[in-house]
């Protein structure tokens, strides 16, 4: 055997290093993508456990399980873990896995930074979890009881756990910004020769828009929480009225990040649907260009409507008129996306595998959440909805279908590609139905609770709200349990199952289906030939 042959073979047989080194030092987009997804799954269960305690406490009036401070701590960590621990890393995992495959690139543009942006996450998660549990150690101070919005002056009263939280958010922000820069650079520079921007799959476009949003708004959050830290420890008065500061300033800074954050959570998932719909409708995507335009429009509008989260702080008439109109106008690009997706189904030849079932459910339920969003935008009516359970119902109708289900759909759609095995379709359909039905049982009654006058974020409530809370809690327990089935399906698929073809779905289009299932450790070392349309 000559050295020349070895050198030549080196490429084909260059597999991953074995053991812990493969993961710790990985610069491979597939391995890092897998780690992101596994991390997100763990956090999903942590955040879900908090939600189960919250719903158990609200099952009936009175304080049965937890004291109010622990309740407030749980609702804060439910939100932060789900947003920063589960949804954002899961979307980043999909991006890592799929963007290089979809654009014909051998890897992400900045592989070592890719490693860094993932490995910051476990440290950040540890910090985040510590912030919720330090109060249980002697001398640990009081619990975080502010909700994820961290409004001062309440957040100035909290003990050292708030400082843990501030640093955890800084780390999470650094991780997101690094990952976003990597994604932007990859999409701009690593496309296969001849693959034009307007030909890119919508999922890639959705992530490009998301990455820009992240780079623009995460530093704003970092600034806000740093000011909070200074107010807490270094004698500044950014948000302290008695020192000439302004408590509402924090809300403006927070929501300047917080509202685009909603689209950061939703856009990647909406992008996934654009891959799934043509496959199972067996016809091309409807309105490829207008989807790209709509996503850019959502990002642009999303950055200038933040104060609709604070209609009750006493803004001027002119200010609330502006925010009301701009917020309502977001229905135009969102409506166009929903319309294009419906028209992709229209006159297709549909089959209903699990990814498609989720997609159809998303179109219906996300529209519902979007329409209650239009109601919330109407300032005078928001005087009633604001900070009530109606808002809780609204954003769960937006974020579960809009963000989480899109990720589930993507996982089922690409799981055969990642593992080389088909998942168990019967179990997956069972999961879908239990999940979606119990979701509606959980959150639909919360609209009624809010309209009838139940505020959000209360651990104990008057007996007039008993019935719908009971229904909601029962739904929530089934909803929570259904995720164990999800976990089982994934483990089962990873361990074995029917062999998946390179093109796992009969009508699937896109470069990711041109490589084997599972793909080799390195793919597209020779860029694919792009046929020009």
């Amino acid at each position: 055997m000559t050295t020349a042959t070895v050198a030549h073979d080196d490429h084909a047989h260059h597999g991953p290093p074995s053991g812990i080194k493969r993961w710790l030092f990985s610069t491979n987009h597939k391995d890092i993508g897998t780690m992101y997804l596994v991390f997100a799954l763990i956090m999903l269960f942590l955040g879900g456990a908090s939600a189960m305690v919250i719903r158990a406490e609200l099952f009936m009036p009175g304080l049965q399980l937890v004291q109010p401070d622990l309740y407030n701590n749980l609702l804060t960590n439910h939100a932060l873990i789900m947003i920063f621990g589960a949804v954002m890393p899961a979307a980043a995992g999909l991006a890592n896995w799929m963007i290089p495959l979809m654009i014909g690139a051998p890897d992400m543009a900045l592989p070592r930074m890719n490693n860094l942006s993932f490995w910051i996450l476990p440290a950040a998660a540890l910090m985040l979890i510590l912030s919720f549990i330090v109060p249980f150690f002697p001398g640990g101070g009081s619990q975080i009881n502010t909700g994820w919005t961290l409004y001062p002056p309440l957040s100035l009263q909290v003990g050292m756990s708030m400082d843990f939280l501030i640093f955890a958010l800084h780390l999470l922000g650094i991780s997101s910004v690094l990952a976003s820069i990597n994604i932007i650079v990859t999409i701009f520079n690593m496309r296969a020769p001849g693959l034009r921007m307007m030909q890119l799959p919508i999922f890639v476009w959705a992530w490009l828009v998301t990455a820009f949003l992240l780079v623009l708004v995460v530093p704003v959050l970092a600034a806000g929480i740093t000011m909070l830290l200074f107010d807490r420890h270094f004698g500044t008065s950014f948000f302290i009225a008695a020192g000439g500061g302004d408590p509402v300033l924090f809300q403006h800074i927070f929501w300047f990040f917080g509202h685009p954050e909603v689209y950061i959570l939703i856009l990647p998932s909406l992008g996934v649907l654009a891959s799934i719909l043509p496959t199972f409708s067996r016809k091309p995507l409807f309105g490829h260009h207008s989807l790209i335009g709509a996503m850019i429009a959502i990002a642009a509008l999303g950055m200038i409507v933040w104060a609709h989260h604070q209609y009750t702080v006493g803004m001027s008439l002119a200010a609330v008129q502006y925010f009301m109109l701009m917020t309502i106008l977001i229905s135009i690009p969102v409506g166009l996306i929903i319309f294009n997706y419906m028209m992709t189904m229209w006159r297709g030849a549909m089959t209903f595998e699990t990814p498609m079932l989720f997609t159809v459910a998303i179109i219906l339920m996300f529209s519902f959440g979007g329409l209650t969003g239009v109601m919330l935008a109407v300032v005078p009516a928001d005087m009633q909805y604001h900070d009530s359970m109606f808002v809780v119902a609204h954003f769960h109708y937006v974020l579960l279908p809009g963000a989480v289900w899109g990720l589930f759909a993507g996982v089922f759609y690409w799981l055969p590609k990642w593992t080389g095995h088909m998942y168990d379709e019967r179990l997956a359909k069972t999961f879908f139905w239990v999940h979606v039905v119990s979701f509606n049982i959980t959150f639909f009654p919360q609209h009624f609770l809010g309209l009838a006058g139940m505020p959000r974020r209360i651990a104990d409530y008057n007996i007039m709200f008993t019935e719908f809370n009971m229904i909601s809690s029962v739904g929530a327990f089934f909803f929570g349990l259904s995720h164990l089935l999800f976990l089982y399906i994934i483990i089962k698929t990873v361990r074995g199952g029917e062999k998946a073809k390179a093109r796992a779905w009969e009508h699937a289009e896109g470069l990711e289906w041109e490589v084997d299932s599972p793909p080799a450790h390195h793919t597209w070392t020779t860029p694919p030939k792009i046929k020009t349309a």
Partner: protein
Amino acid sequence: MLATKRSLPKYLLALGAAIAGLGGTAAAEEVQRWGVNFPPPVSTTAQEIYDIHMFTMGIATVLLVIIFAVVIYSLIVHRKSRGFKPDQQFHETWFGRWSWVFVPIMVLGVDLTIAGAAQRTLERVWVVPQDQPLVDVKVIGHQWYWEFVYLDHDVTIESRYTSPEEAGIHYLRDVDNRLVLPTNQRVRFLHTSSDVIHAFWVPELAVKKDAIPGYITETWVNIQQEGVFRGQCAELCGTWHARMPIVVEAVSQEEFDGWIEEQQEIRMAALAEAAEEREWDKDDLMARGQSLYNSRCAACHQEDGSGMPPAFPAIKGSPVATGPISEHIGIILNGVPGTAMAAWNSLNDLEIAALVTYQRNAWGNDTGDVVQPAEVKAER
């Protein structure tokens, strides 16, 4: 932290009653159960807000029905199992080429309809009319009670949640002192806060506004109907956020005037009593101190003085309650900055003297100290 001692059997009873209530036996005074929409509006602006809510919800419902109808039709007809042949050119028809223009125009039409209708209501709700005299009520949020100052009448009411025994079916929506307001009269609320952000919300009046330290925000109502209307604090304000109810009692102008007069007399009597220059005996101070403590302090420091550490320290056996008297008075008068402990300097000298005496002698804090109003006066 897990498992509270409090009230479980009582709640089970309430729950039993609740379930029995579903059978149809209505008590004399019943809460609205199974409520699915706003409670009936009782003010002019609340009625308009109710109307715009129903209007927007109507449009949203129509749109939702259209989306569901199109999707369900497509799900039934355009499926492979029925042998439907996919239309590969659909996105290239004139409909496919131009829908990006006409869909946004149609949505814009709906948007402007909603915004236009909302605009008219918004102006009336947002701008406080100045052409007639207003009853001004300053609403001050505290952790965790409301203070209402009738600015035109020099009357101040503190409004606290009541225990399950007193409140009955209205628990968490019942208070000791109600906010009494006249009907058919414009009332302006001026909201502010002494500590963290709270929000004043009474659904029947459709009023919700944040009470923010350093800010004065305003809302107004014109209540059309006499009655009792209940609401709650709507902005997370810490531990006992759920225990900040608001109860509005709307009465006729004559009744309101009579009530104001009564409140002024009560206030004068209390001032006169505190100004009496005499030595108060320990038993009297202890009795007054206990009732004040249980209403003002026990939410955080607990009735047995054990507190809820670390957020709310114990008073039982604390170095403050057993140390120098002047420091003890100082903390009550000035609060502790950076914590939930507020400055209680709105209490009069007699009240603070009673509180300090009680805290220094209750629960085994047997200092034997008897603090007189004059000592408090000296510390102010």
